[in-house]
């Protein structure tokens, strides 16, 4: 082997390869969408549809409870382009902190709140008030402080005067899918989730009640103010309202906003 520095042409070839690799790695536009956990399945279908309509764009999803997603953007400065939350209140918080483009905020889907029980459950509540009975020792509810489904639940229970009776039984879930999982495993006696989540595990959970909420369960979407991809972000929000996207969302059990 030859000692000493590599021949000049080898260095140039190496540099060229590195540049090519680096260039290939950079996409035309990476669109990062932070969306509520309950949208996981539907959005994973919508992602490729949007990419087909906008060639050169790659959609990256980040799912979680709306409260945590907001904190990632607000406190952590996460490079997110679109924020879709499961309730208006989280989006209101985002708006008041100047995180989103308020003028482009749109309601994109609707959902319903339901009470589910494990399929192996011996008692099935026919009314909300039945949850105060001793047959229901543990009820999975999203944390009202940070999870929209928990806020809807607390609102409904407070209006019915049942919150103080049911709160001691509450097992706090950090997002709606965790509440669903608790019920599916039979670790709790009942849980409050969205109709769309209940539909995911028909063999493990059954819907006992559909619960009318104080405010309709509507999911708003908005482009993030600090996003570098404002135009594409806006296109994504518009895409969510299109007939094609709404058809996919309806297939997953969501309603029109």
């Amino acid at each position, binding site marked *: 082997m030859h000692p000493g520095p590599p021949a000049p042409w080898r260095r140039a070839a190496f540099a060229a390869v590195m540049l090519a690799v680096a260039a290939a790695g950079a996409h035309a536009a990476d669109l990062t969408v932070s969306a509520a956990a309950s949208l996981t399945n539907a959005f994973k279908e919508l992602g490729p549809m949007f990419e087909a309509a906008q060639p050169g764009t790659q959609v990256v999803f980040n799912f979680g409870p709306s409260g945590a997603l*907001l904190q990632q953007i607000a406190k952590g400065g996460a490079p997110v382009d679109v924020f879709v939350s499961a309730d208006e209140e989280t989006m209101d918080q985002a708006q008041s902190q100047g995180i989103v483009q308020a003028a482009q905020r749109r309601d994109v889907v609707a959902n319903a709140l339901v009470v589910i029980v494990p399929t192996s459950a011996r008692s099935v509540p026919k009314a909300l008030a039945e949850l105060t009975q001793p047959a229901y020792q*543990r009820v999975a509810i999203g*944390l009202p*402080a940070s999870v929209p489904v928990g806020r809807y639940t607390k609102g409904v229970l407070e209006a019915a005067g049942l919150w103080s009776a049911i709160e001691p039984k509450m097992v*706090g879930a950090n997002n709606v899918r965790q509440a669903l999982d608790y019920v599916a*495993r039979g670790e709790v006696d009942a849980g409050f989730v969205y109709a769309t989540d209940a539909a995911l595990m028909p063999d493990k959970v059954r819907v006992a009640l559909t619960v009318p909420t104080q405010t309709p369960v509507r999911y708003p979407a908005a482009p993030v103010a600090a996003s570098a991809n404002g135009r594409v972000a806006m296109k994504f929000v518009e895409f969510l309202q299109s007939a094609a996207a709404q058809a996919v969302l309806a297939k997953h059990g969501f309603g029109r906003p």
Partner: protein
Amino acid sequence: MEGAWIALALTLKVAAWATALNLVLGVAVGLAMARARFPGRELLDAVLTLPMVMPPTVLGYYLLVLIGTHSPLGAWLLEHLGIRLIFTWQGAVVAAMVVSFPLVFKAARAAFETVDPQLEDAARTLGMHELAVFFRVTLPLAWRGILAGLLLSFARSLGEFGATLMVAGSIPGRTQTLSIAVYEAVQAGHDDAANFLVAVTSIVCIAVLLSAGRLLPGRVVARE
């Protein structure tokens, strides 16, 4: 802010129980591994050390499957002993124990291996029976190493989050430990609460480590 004190009391209770149980278990297993010689000993050692290197959420999942209410073991416990581990502080103790067991067991094994067997033999020739040899010769000699493992185990149990969240859930007053409380406060944007909880946790950890170093025997005295 009283929620913070409740979470603190619960966290200390869980960590104390987990460490105490690990002391007994870790010392027993450490002694056995140090003394016994059998084929596959090192493999067993590796398996027992696994919880330390596995991601806590993976451990939490295994625990859910093994001791969940619908698992064979969990169902048996519930039916015959009325014990439910999921969503209880006992479950949090189990989770903390499992993740910090290797810290005590490894330290104990290493400590026992450094005890000069001649000292134990000398005790035996003087007429001590095995149990006395262990408590009056072996254990005092190995104590410093075991203590280091115990402190690490306590600290690990104080901060245990992933496995605890999966097994014990988050029930204020019953299973919401300090780590979980911090997580939820941050998620909800409650910065004041989060800062307070973090400060409390940090002060407690420092206090524990300082006082453990002072009160317990085995401290190295500086030679002047």
